[in-house]
């Protein structure tokens, strides 16, 4: 289907179903139950899942295929956000032109940065991209304040000179982002017994775009171009010796991956028309790397999984406080309860980053292929057991 082989079609359909049914899947617990805090089916968080999914898919095209580790990808995200917000300010609140502009601008940025950085590889490439990203971040904070609005961040105001559309909506607030009249923040709630499922327009727009992005990435992975990128990863020298110049290929991968990041940035601004420089800081770049590695770099599904995983636990873990911990361990004797709470305390709530760092170290050390490799190993172990079972009597004979 759509030029995909059978295996990829299945994968794509599974991802599509999971994404489109996310409001149900992420909301398994009744609203009033004690477990409702583990629900993730609210619009804001679901939007973040798919947007960071796009970001990680794009990063994976660069890192997963070519092995070039960019530590400056957040710069493209930030550039995308800024261009989208400017489009909202100047042209219209429709998200289509904003997203198109953010993809184009991020692509141009990636072209310039990639052209320079890709002259070197390995650690030097990482440092060069890092330097470029830090440069953009510092400039956005200081001299570019007329464009970026410095520390406050760029946002919609009441006196924006919007060409198509009004500066102030009827209710006196700035108008909201929309897609031909469909407002991004509009949410329908479906009450089914004890459950309340939320369907948000913005989420579905992002989800459809993410599916398109995922489809494109599958096609890139299976194309001759993708094969060429893999060859760069396995042995660039040999490629050069065969008379092939690898630069155009790696540059194309870099630009595509930068455009994905710009798309994610544009969508982020479309959901919430605000852009701040902290989106470009190198820790943000680090987070993108984390997502991709955690899920499994070089696999199709990995980055999406990683992005979902990190964003889910970031949200859930950071909400857990001592009171909640006490209710969890309430069945234990008092002393033990307090002890457990003290042990768990540093890892939840504000300590989420500690858990993230530890998790990351464990994954890099023991599971370099990420969650996807973990899943494959489990699946392999299970199937081997099944195969082994009939053999065991033979061995005993």
């Amino acid at each position, binding site marked *: 289907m759509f030029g995909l082989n059978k295996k990829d079609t299945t994968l794509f359909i599974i991802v599509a179903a999971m994404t489109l049914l996310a409001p149900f899947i992420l909301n398994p617990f009744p609203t009033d139950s004690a477990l409702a805090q583990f629900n993730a089916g609210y619009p804001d968080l679901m939007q973040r899942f798919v947007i960071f999914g796009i970001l990680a898919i794009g990063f994976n095209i660069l890192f997963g295929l070519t092995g070039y580790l960019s530590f400056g990808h957040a710069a493209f995200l930030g550039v995308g956000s800024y261009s989208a917000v400017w489009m909202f300010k100047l042209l219209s609140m429709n998200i289509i032109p904003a997203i198109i502009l953010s993809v184009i601008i991020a692509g141009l940025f990636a072209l310039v940065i990639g052209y320079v950085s890709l002259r070197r590889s390995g650690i030097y490439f990482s440092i*060069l991209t890092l330097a470029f990203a830090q440069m953009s971040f510092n400039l956005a904070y200081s001299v570019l304040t007329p464009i970026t609005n410095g520390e406050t961040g760029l946002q919609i105001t009441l006196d924006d000179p919007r060409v198509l559309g009004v500066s102030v909506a009827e209710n006196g607030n700035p108008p909201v982002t929309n897609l031909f009249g469909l407002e991004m923040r509009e949410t329908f709630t479906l009450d089914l017994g004890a459950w309340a499922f939320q369907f948000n327009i913005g989420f579905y727009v992002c989800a459809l775009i993410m599916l398109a992005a995922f489809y494109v990435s599958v096609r890139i992975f299976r194309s001759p171009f993708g094969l060429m990128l893999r060859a760069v990863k396995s042995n660039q020298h040999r490629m050069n010796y065969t008379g092939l110049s690898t630069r155009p290929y790696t540059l194309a991968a870099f630009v595509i991956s930068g455009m994905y990041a710009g798309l994610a940035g544009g969508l982020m601004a479309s959901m919430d028309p605000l852009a701040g420089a902290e989106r470009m800081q190198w820790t943000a770049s680090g987070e993108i790397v984390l997502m991709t590695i955690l899920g499994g770099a070089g696999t199709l599904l990995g980055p999406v999984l990683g992005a979902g995983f990190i964003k889910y636990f970031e949200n859930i873990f950071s909400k857990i406080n001592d009171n909640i911990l006490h209710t969890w361990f309430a069945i234990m004797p008092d002393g033990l309860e307090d002890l457990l709470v003290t042990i768990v305390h*540093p890892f939840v709530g504000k300590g989420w980053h500690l858990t993230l760092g530890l998790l990351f170290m464990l994954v890099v050390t023991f599971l370099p292929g990420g969650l996807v490799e973990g899943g494959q190993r489990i699946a392999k172990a299970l199937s081997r057991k099944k195969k082994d079972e009939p053999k065991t009597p033979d061995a005993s004979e």
Partner: protein
Amino acid sequence: MDAILLQILNGLDKGSAYALIALGLTLIFGTLGVVNFAHGALFMVGAFVAVTVQRLFNWSFETVDPTKTDFLGNPAKVKTPYVESWFGPEVGAAMIDWSVPLAILFAIPIMIVVGFVMERGLIKHFYKRPHADQILVTFGLAIVVQEIVKAYYGANPIPTPAPDVFKGSFDFGPLLGLDTSLAYPYWRLVYFGFSAAIIGAVFAFLQFTTFGLVVRAGMADRETVGLLGINIDKKFTIMFGIAAAVAGLAGVMYAPINSPNYHMGMDFLVLSFVVVVVGGMGSLPGAVLAGFMLGILESIASMNVIKELIPGIDQIIIYVVAILILLTRPRGLMGRKGVMED
């Protein structure tokens, strides 16, 4: 002219910090071939050793002093630090005053142990893995260390004053025969002297001791040294400890200049990496040279005259220089042939 001189002086202390961290990074890279993203965290841990020592020395107990009363007429409680009651009031007060320099004594063993644990416990397993994996795992480690420090000390910077003697500044004006005054804080002068001493000590250690000779041989050709029957891994572990101690000492002494906070290591790390790359990966003199050079350039770029000429240059000068150098001199300023080339 004197404005430029002042900026050069100002650049020296930042440059010293860059040089010390970059020196440690290069030591680790040159010996073990590991790209250590957690090196900034070691610098930060060093600064927090200074904070901890200052707190320990200020740890006090309360006694009721019958001769004094507080403003309500009740007998006043007087806090006496334990060190004052143990060593006598004068020695105790001096210890509190001099807690940052004294922290050096604590920092050296602590940092060496931290370095050993890090190398034996984690980094050892990453020698054969790609550089990307090394970057990632040490990046994770840096986050963990940073978060642990944040959990204990909070997110706010903690002021850690230098000894009273070094408060105030030294006037370079008359010394250099200028009519204008050229004030420069004493502690920064101390910092510069201190880091020059450390750099000198590291170089002397590598140059004039048998141990240093073996380590240098190992940096040049690890396999051959191993074939000669020398346990080079053990020596390199010790070098990791030394590199950690250098970063830690840089942190201890930097605490009075910038109040330590949990992310100071990350801020320095990015710049130190740029410094290492500019100096040439694996080149110790290159790291020191590039550290001072970039520190001074950063200071000069922050002069108003230059900022008016090119707005924003002070924010990006280091990165611009790094990009230019990497593109024109791929091995950095003093990079050796065959180190980290692809």
